[in-house]
């Protein structure tokens, strides 16, 4: 998902400045890195692997042969973010997610932002994730994106938002698991640093979910809904249910009667008020969406429409996080909140605008071009890494469907010190913090999931392509 060109310029290193001096936040860590032997790192890494396996912190890959349970490589060197950096990011993320929630309310309500001419309506209508049947259905407390993952990268010392994830963002269990591992492996480091804790994420999540219960007259029954134990992120679903102390359910555990959702328990049916679902819209309810879905609950959407259950995240959120609408998030912030955006967007050229299309086609060798509805790094062109022939072929695709593409300049992503087997070396990283929006307030734990591209020079942090994760420290000021 990362793109950019390593040799475009010297990438920003989060530990070491260009003049070779060590940045303040990394002072103690740098000393530790230079005094710890390669052998110690190797042993600690083995210990971490064992720990993750024993705890079952794995992700599942089926159909490729071998052991379906894989470990995401864990880098034992933590990443450090200063308290000052974090408080700006925190404000920026809160602002951003508030605007996205307001936008979703508007899209499925009055559609003022289209009438005011700030965003072209056809961007929504062209998006398969738009669910017209949700028009006029207001979710409890008007919250759509209860859990948002805001993907950020650092370039030239500044954080940029690369992507908003407001459907079913994953990875938070690694944020928590990594912290547990790091504290077990290197307790001494935590004595030297004042690292802000992240373990209360589960409490925050539970409070957020409870706050949107449709009925206030009784203790709300909250559940986590998973597609099942063969889902690659099943561990995370189970982990979160466990940490929140609530039930983990599958579609077959639930049924709907008279527009009310119940779960089957050993003491009879029990009413469900809030569902944190970890499966996509189209699988939720075979009566409303895909008829062949065996994972969902027949009648769930009717119960939702009747206001008898809160579903987090709401149905139809996909209109707010694709690559075309991303461009308009600063516009949303101005329109709904009357504020200037705190966080940077990566400058983006849109194929749908004639002048920008011309620019894209003339600069294919230096831009990164992406499909508007694509994801996971598929179907994109990384200009500087492509051949002339690839660029020409891609140009034809763009010309055939200009609105289907956007382009961004290649960024020199920041690097962090990383243990690479033979020693410590800089590797490119990104960051996904998690923003929780409840009826009462927004909650964010200080930290997030840092992904790291373990291969030298690589900008791809996806776990399927050799990416790993790091513990992410936000320091107390």
């Amino acid at each position, binding site marked *: 998902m990362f793109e950019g060109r390593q040799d475009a310029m010297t990438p920003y290193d989060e530990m070491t400045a260009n003049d070779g001096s060590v940045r303040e936040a990394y002072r103690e860590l740098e000393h530790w890195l230079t005094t710890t032997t390669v052998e110690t790192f190797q042993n600690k890494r083995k210990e971490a692997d064992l720990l993750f*396996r*024993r*705890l*079952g912190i794995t992700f599942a890959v089926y159909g490729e042969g071998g052991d379906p349970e894989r470990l995401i490589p864990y880098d034992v060197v933590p990443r450090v973010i200063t308290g000052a950096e974090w408080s700006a990011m925190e404000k920026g993320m809160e602002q951003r997610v508030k605007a996205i929630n307001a936008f979703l309310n508007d899209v499925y309500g009055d559609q003022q932002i289209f009438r005011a001419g700030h965003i072209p309506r056809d961007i929504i209508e062209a998006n398969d994730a738009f669910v017209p049947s949700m028009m006029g259905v207001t979710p409890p407390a008007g919250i759509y994106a209860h859990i948002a993952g805001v993907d950020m990268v650092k370039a030239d010392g500044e954080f940029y938002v690369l992507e908003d994830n407001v459907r079913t963002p994953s990875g938070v269990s690694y944020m928590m698991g990594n912290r547990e591992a790091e504290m077990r492996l290197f307790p001494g480091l935590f004595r030297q640093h004042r690292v802000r804790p992240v373990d209360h994420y589960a409490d925050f999540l539970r409070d957020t979910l409870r706050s949107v219960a449709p*009925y206030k*007259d009784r203790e709300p029954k909250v559940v986590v809904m998973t597609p099942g*134990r063969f889902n690659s992120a099943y*561990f995370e679903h*189970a*982990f979160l*249910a*466990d940490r929140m102390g609530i*039930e*983990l*359910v*599958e579609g*077959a*555990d639930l049924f709907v*009667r*008279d527009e*009310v959702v*119940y*779960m*089957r*328990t*050993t*003491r*009879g*049916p029990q*009413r469900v008020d809030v569902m944190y679902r970890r499966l996509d819209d189209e699988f939720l309810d075979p009566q409303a969406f895909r008829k062949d879905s065996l994972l969902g609950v027949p009648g769930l959407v009717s119960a939702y429409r009747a206001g*008898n259950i809160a579903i987090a995240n709401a149905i139809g959120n996909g209109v707010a996080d694709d690559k075309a609408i991303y461009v308009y998030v600063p516009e949303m912030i101005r329109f709904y909140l009357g504020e200037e955006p705190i966080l940077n967007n990566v400058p983006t050229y849109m194929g749908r605008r004639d002048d920008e299309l011309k620019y894209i086609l003339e600069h294919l060798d230096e831009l990164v071009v992406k499909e508007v509805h694509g994801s996971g790094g598929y179907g994109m062109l990384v200009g500087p890494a492509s051949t002339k022939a690839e660029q020409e072929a891609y140009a034809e695709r763009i010309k055939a469907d200009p609105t289907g593409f956007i382009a961004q300049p290649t960024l020199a992503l920041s690097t962090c010190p990383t243990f690479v087997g033979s020693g410590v070396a800089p590797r490119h990283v990104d960051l996904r913090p998690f923003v929780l929006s409840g009826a009462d307030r927004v909650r964010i734990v200080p930290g997030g999931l840092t992904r790291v591209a373990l291969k030298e020079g690589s900008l791809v942090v996806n776990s399927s392509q050799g990416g790993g994760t790091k513990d992410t420290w936000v320091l107390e000021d």
Partner: protein
Amino acid sequence: MLSRTADDLFWMSRYVERAENVARLLEVADRMALMPQDAGGTDEWTAVLIAGGVAPLYTELVGKVEADPTLRFMALSKENPSSIYNCFSVARENARAQRHTITRELWEAINDTWHGIRDMTPEKVEGMGHTAFFEWVKSRSHLVRGALAGTMIRDDAYSFTRLGTFIERADSTSRILDVKYHLILPTEEVVGGAPDYYQWAALLQSVSAQGSYRRMFGDQIRYTNVAELLVLRPEMPRSVRSCYDNIMENLQNLTESYESPPRCLRMAGKLRARLVYGEVAEFTGQESGLHEFLTEVVDTNLQIAAQIGKDFLLTAEADDSPLAIPENARQEQTMG
């Protein structure tokens, strides 16, 4: 609790118990194979396959009953659903699905066990020695039970887990005794040195009851005493009676708040009454033999397990359960 959770926990512990029982069966057969041919022979291995309920499958997949192939089939085969490998594997799948319900200690005990059996090969089993392998399986089962006893909250989840253990054990003890009874011509008194003596001694050993037998009945091994010990004695933890004491206790815990006892509780109570008030002479006589009685126990035990599934909505086709009709559900809705 969620019905599916109860179901997963029930099967998790059933399969761990089954792995242990298969190891016990194999251990005895392996030991008997060391005896002079007329004492053991391949009958021992046939007995293992029959008690495990997989004799037809073995014939189909492997063929002739011999020591090594049977051992491999029962220990490591992926095609045999009752092999130790598959028992631990299914137990672990169920545990994984309930990773959030069970304690970390219990999960780690089961997960480590699975990693151990996954890495096991016939060569490794030979290398470590059969006995060491059987001991390993038993010790893993002990560890799982210990983690359960030492760390799990005594709630419904615990009760369903315990039910799985005792339903499986009642089944296993009955089958082991029944198969042995078939193999051995029951003579009233068995004298030391005769082949049958070793058979009964091995049977006692398979349920870790040699010492207990000696303390309770003296040195002489009589088959009526063995039957009494394994069927009727409450102090013998692997006896059918003891299993049913535990099954009743756990079912009562689960249904405390019920106005009338569910069907599974009544069925279990009736069977237990026979075990509590029955006398060994009743089913070791010529008229109604031990085999008939044990067959009945195995069948009833099976029916009780199925009824537990229905009564607690564990099975999809549980429509005749009183819980299936959401009466309280409708009331709640009008409140809402």
